[in-house]
């Protein structure tokens, strides 16, 4: 027995357990004794904040009050943590979830895509990267729709058109537009006009005849679509950056939802019966 004890006393494992135990007690007790230490930098920041809000430097007494308040807050915060008061607080909860999402996003950075991956992505998502449809058209503008009067809403004869043009008002951007996209038309005439315009232009008999009135914020327009330039298949080099960004965005999103899946896999999830 004595030999065993002696052997035990010499065993490094015993030393490990004993020293570790002391260390644990020491550290634990220093945690419990609760030191609150405020740095000089912290004080300066508090003073600066005081100055911003009150527009003067704190007096020595006010400084003491500032520190007193800070010490009190820190102590309450520490005690609150021990009591786990943050646990069911909706604000704390929201903030922690938000932080966790950022952490996951940071961990979800995908590898750098290869040329082939990007080319494949483009083929799979061709529609997103297509050059938009463009329209070449002419219009005549009237400040007041009443000038157009009771005329038909489409298929003006050439005679009527000439007559209408003589009564037209000047439009500051001119009367002829070449190769505009839907968003170009929106930014020049407003989206209400652009939507009506495209709807009309897409009709089979929409080209080469005067049509209207189409209204905009500016007034009324009679339009004649001269050409529709169909959407073009994109050239890889021209859209490479956009494809890269879209690829990265998609992969990051996928990685992130995978990461969430993995987290969920660690939990047994118990839902209300109706929703299982």
């Amino acid at each position, binding site marked *: 027995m004595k030999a065993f004890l002696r052997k035990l006393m010499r065993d490094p494992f015993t030393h490990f357990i004993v020293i570790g135990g002391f260390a644990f007690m020491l550290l634990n007790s220093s945690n419990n004794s609760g030191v609150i230490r405020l740095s000089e*930098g912290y004080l*300066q*920041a508090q*003073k*600066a*904040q005081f100055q*911003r*809000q*009150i*527009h*003067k*430097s704190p007096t020595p007494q006010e400084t003491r009050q500032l520190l007193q308040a800070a010490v009190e807050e820190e102590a309450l915060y520490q005690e609150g943590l021990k009591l786990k008061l943050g646990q069911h607080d909706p604000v704390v909860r929201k903030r922690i979830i938000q932080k966790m999402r*950022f952490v996951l*996003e*940071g961990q979800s*950075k995908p590898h750098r895509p290869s040329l082939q991956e990007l080319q494949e992505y483009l083929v799979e998502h061709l529609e997103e990267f297509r050059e938009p449809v*463009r329209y070449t058209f002419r219009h*005549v503008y009237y*400040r007041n729709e009443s000038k157009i009067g009771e005329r038909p809403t489409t298929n003006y004869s050439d005679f009527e058109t000439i007559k209408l*043009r003589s009564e*037209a*008002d*000047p*439009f*500051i*951007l*001119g*009367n*002829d*537009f*070449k*190769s505009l996209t839907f968003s170009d038309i*929106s*930014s*020049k*005439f*407003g*989206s209400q006009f652009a939507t009506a315009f495209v709807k009309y232009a897409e009709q089979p008999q929409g080209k080469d005849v005067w049509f209207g009135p189409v209204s*905009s*914020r*500016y*007034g009324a327009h009679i339009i004649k679509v001269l050409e529709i330039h169909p959407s073009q298949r994109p050239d890889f080099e021209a859209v490479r*950056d956009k494809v890269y*960004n879209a690829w990265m965005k998609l992969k990051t999103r996928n990685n992130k939802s995978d990461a969430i899946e993995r987290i969920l896999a660690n939990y047994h999830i118990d839902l209300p019966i109706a929703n299982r």
Partner: protein
Amino acid sequence: MSKYRNSYILIGLGWLMLVGMSKVPVTLEPQLAEEPAIGHCNDFSLHKNPYFGDLHVHTGYSMDAAQAGVITTPDDAYRFAKGEEIMLPPHDEDGHSDRTLQLDRPLDFTAVTDHSEFLAETSICFNRNNLAYYGPYCVTMRGTEDGNHPLDTLAFALGMGGIVLPGGEFNFGFCKLRPELCEKRASDSWKSTQNAAQKAYDRSSNCSFTSFIGYEWTGSPAMNNQHRNIIYRNEIVSEAPISYFDADKPHELWEMLDDSCTHQNNGCEILTIPHNSNLGGGTMFQPYTEKENPYTPEIAAQRQRLEPLIEIYQHKGASECVNSPNVLLASEDELCEFELIVSDICTGSEADAEDCTPLCSDLPVPIGAFSGRCAEPSDFARGILRNGLKEQSRIGVNPFKIGFIGSTDTHNGTPGAVEERGFKGHTGKTDADLESLIGTNSTATTSENDLASKLKSIIETDSIKRYSAGGLAVIWAEQNSRGALFDSMQNRETYATSGPRIITRFFGGWHLPDDMCSQENFAKKGYALGVPMGGDLPSAPLSESKPKFAISAFMDVGSDNFPGTELQQIQVIKGWEKNGETYEKVLTVAGDANNGASVNLDTCQVQGSGYTNLCAVWTDETFSQSQNAFYYARVVENPTCRWHKHQCNAAFEAQKLSCDTITAEHPLSACCDGSTPDTVQERAWTSPIWYQAR
């Protein structure tokens, strides 16, 4: 966050004054790239189209932007201009941010204009891969998160020492010690600025976007602003951008630009665009190189050639005009009271408002105009134009023949982010939330009177709330390509807006028909029978001839999210010279200043109606052929809520606050301090048309 802002400004300006880099500009061999010929673009029009853009944009390459946590590159800025979304500071360590921004209407053109000063230091000190990142210089340059650390004070004190000395002579900088390393760094940043612009330029026949290579020369001796943006015509540029430490006076800058670019005869062409003359303190538009050396016709002609435009509006306020009765070159015009950083000029009489701004020349030491501490009407566009007429008489050349543009001066790399509704600031993390944007309550007065506070007041602007979302540059050009746009900038066929995409044309001539406004071919008539904005009236055909001006304006049609506002009126501003004195007057020529339109301040809903478009042909009946004169038009919208009102309303509703009950200590109490008007009348200013007396 706002508590950091001042320190960033202090450190930034401090170092700006202190540190220099020595560089000899050398010109590159021309790299030939296909410039779209006139007629190449689908949108080509002989009668020109208006293009909307931004010619004043900073990214994380600018030291002050980097200090404010901005990490965007020139590439990002161009992507943003074309309509892509980007993230705004503050970023986390992975560069992520949940603050994002996207234009709802892309721009037609943009120039990224990072500060030429400290290009190298910024690239070194904000990259952890450099050993110097951890050195004392970089640590000081980055400042502290706290913003009030002794380190920040040190930078401030050093900065003050540099400010009162002539620029470029105080050089304690990192690059003074390691010039060989710095030159490479500066040139890397400059190259990647060029590459970003080259990549962003659409040379296809769609001509959907034009980029310009540029930078900002940031001279501000004695804290009086003299800043200028340098814009290159094409990709043939100088080897290195010129900084305040290379040329510390504007005329030296022009000399160096001519030497390193214009006179190389290799296709290099530049123009310089001054901005924030509202903060110039009377140093920006003086007709002399030194007080005792008035401009010669040669220098005046050089200035007229290289500096055809002024940025009259940006996020640090308007530089059109400033009010005061009986002060030389000041105005008496209600509509000058718009997004001014300064107040009415003090006259010294009892009628002066308490917060009037003194003339810089009345201060014992004329420094600190950059903070709005003092101002000089001779640095506002009207005063500048009037002095130009006098120079025309004195030496036969007008050095101040300036057309107008607007821009943002964003430091977030967000060109064209001018929307009032949802304005997210232009200076990184220093104005990243509403509390920092609106700043402290101005009615709470400071009792600080010590030297440090006094010095600080010279540098700080009192409140960021006075800043705005910035404006746009508009160029009438045949097509959206570098050559066409640059030609029109040189011809001043440009105008400025305070943000909205108002479209306006302005022609002057002797034979413009009175019924131009009802003729379909307004522009064709304008070009055939007159000159466009930025031009010169030819000599009068008959001794009794009176000039006519045709002005047409269409409201900004807006977007789905942000519908445009109707117009209220068009005004013509005339300035003239008679017997050595200059005069100005403002006339409403279309619309109605009293149309009854207003804003509901609780909801920001616009009430009453204005005009979707306005047009007028106006004859100057008081014209005299013996008087030099200029004319420009101002197109004014109906009133709308200013950005702070939109955002304060939203915050107040969410937090159930009201101006009646809010306490002065509340972080949002500045919403109610009345330091800036709750409504604004957004506008456009056309470049002038000049008449030279015969």
